[in-house]
């Protein structure tokens, strides 16, 4: 019998969640996209409305499911559904957004029980478009929230960046793990 576990990717619209899952997944990801009708359409034509799904297959048959949540707050009921049983949480934040630190705070609040029970890793994307706020500001926000988590500047298209972020998440769960 194969076993399963999952890692959750969350964050605001346009932060790169769908891209990250596409970059990491062993299979073609399942996406639930619809044409954007609200302010999101100014940023992209299609947006995730339920979830993105990908999978990593381990050599013993275990499947690690990668779930991406919709970014818009009006779909926040999906956040609760998807976080159940997650191994850990990756929050991606678009540094070029108007208020990225507010986004980080909001998502920490939304996932506080999961973060307290498991671990969090934060990926800051699009720093090539907007180098500010600097990563120090994210650290400060995490400190204020009483959360210790790795914060890396990442490109969601680069597998190496995402692997490092996931490694940090997984070792945060247990640094004693030997590979």
């Amino acid at each position, binding site marked *: 019998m194969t076993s399963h576990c999952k890692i959750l990717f969350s964050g605001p619209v346009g932060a790169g969640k769908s891209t990250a899952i596409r970059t990491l997944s062993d299979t073609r990801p399942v996406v639930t996209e619809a044409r954007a009708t609200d302010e999101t359409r100014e940023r992209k034509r299609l947006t995730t409305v339920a979830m993105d799904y990908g999978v990593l297959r381990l*050599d013993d048959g275990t499947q690690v499911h990668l779930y991406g949540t919709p970014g818009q707050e009006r779909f926040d009921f999906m956040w609760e559904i998807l976080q159940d049983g997650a191994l850990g949480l990756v929050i991606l934040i678009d540094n070029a957004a108007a208020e990225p630190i507010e986004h980080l705070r909001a998502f920490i609040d939304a996932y506080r029980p999961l973060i307290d029970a498991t671990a969090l890793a934060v990926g800051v994307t699009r720093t090539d478009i907007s180098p*500010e706020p600097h990563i120090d500001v994210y650290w400060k926000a995490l400190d204020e929230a009483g959360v210790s988590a790795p914060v890396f500047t990442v490109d969601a298209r680069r*597998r*190496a960046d995402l692997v490092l972020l996931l490694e940090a998440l997984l070792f945060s769960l247990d640094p004693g793990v030997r590979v």
Partner: protein
Amino acid sequence: MAGDESVTVGVHAAGIDDGIRRALEAFFSGPCRERFAFTDEKAADVAIIDLDIRRYHGLLDDYLERHRDRVVIGLAFEPDDSLTDRVMVMRKPLRSEDLRKTLDRLAAERCARAAEAALGEPPAVDGAPGTAPDPVATPRAEQPVAPLLEPAVPPVTEPVAVVEEPVRKASVDPGDRRSHRGRRRPDHLADVAMSVAGRADRPLFRAHHSAQRRAAVGADGRWYDPDQHAQGAVVAAADLARRSGQPVEVVFGAARMVIGPGPGEAAICCNDTQLRIACSQKGRATIRTLPTGERSGLGAVDVRYEHLLWDVALYSSMGRLPTGVAPDVPYRLTRWPDLARVTLIPDATRLAAYWTQGARTIDEVGQVLGIDDASVASFFSAAEAVDLMVREDEGRGHRRSRQPSGRRRLLSRLIGRLRAA
């Protein structure tokens, strides 16, 4: 020659400087142009990538990911033994005859694969695996060769507005780690990036495989004095830049860097190998202020100051601890460094995870995690240089320590799977 003369092999070059490109163009327009064509990425069968550029790991990873059926010829002064077998390393300076032989071999193997596919059985090919070994290039091979493509050593310009001082004149007591730390990271360096051009840097530093490191540890023991290495020079330059309000150039051996007066501003004007070699040696630096704006004309790649200082400290440390640091005193990592943008050492993520969860002594970290002392010391030195390490009695807040997850096998397999793919 084993290759089929009728086969034209497309060769594409990525991440190389203009000098190497011109030399390759001359090579491919020479006598071998019937068999090899210098082409664009799409039409290529083989890629040549300069492994000495500071962002090469990202470039190489991306390239191998995009072209799973291609072989890459990597050019390097000092080959990295962590590379995949799909990378054939040729040591710089590169000789045209060696490059021709390597390409001949690749052409022969390509021809053999085509024949194998057509006939259903492998034909014998000179130089193919299982036959006589090729002396020119095998995966991870190193060859002493004569120069064709010389390394691009950046020119050192004459001082303009000189505030030249040896590193040892730095206005800090080398024995005072607190003041040293304060000097290294002025407050104004905490916020803004000058540019993002260097943000993709993430080479992997195999400190414990380095013969240089072993030699240095043998000579100096477990500690090193940052002020006798490039690390001290970079810190002194940052201090001068802040005080003068002007960019400051620091030259240390073959390494040349510019530290800007603004928050986080820095640039590097040499390749990673030159930086690594320079940092590994003791020496004296030339430090001078530059007129505002001159930095842009130096062919510099912008990096964040703290990322540069991390790398310089890592290379200066070479598995040793900064003087004044006791391995039996508990330290804690206040925050995770941005490991996606600095040079990594093996187990950096484990070390960061463990050290952010509580204060541990350096000796304890190595023993508990089963990581060699040199890697622990290198990580500590880099993190301490960028002011991320605090002694327990300097603690800034408390971190919770997690219990073992009970899912170690799963986590181990998952991390292994991520790394292997």
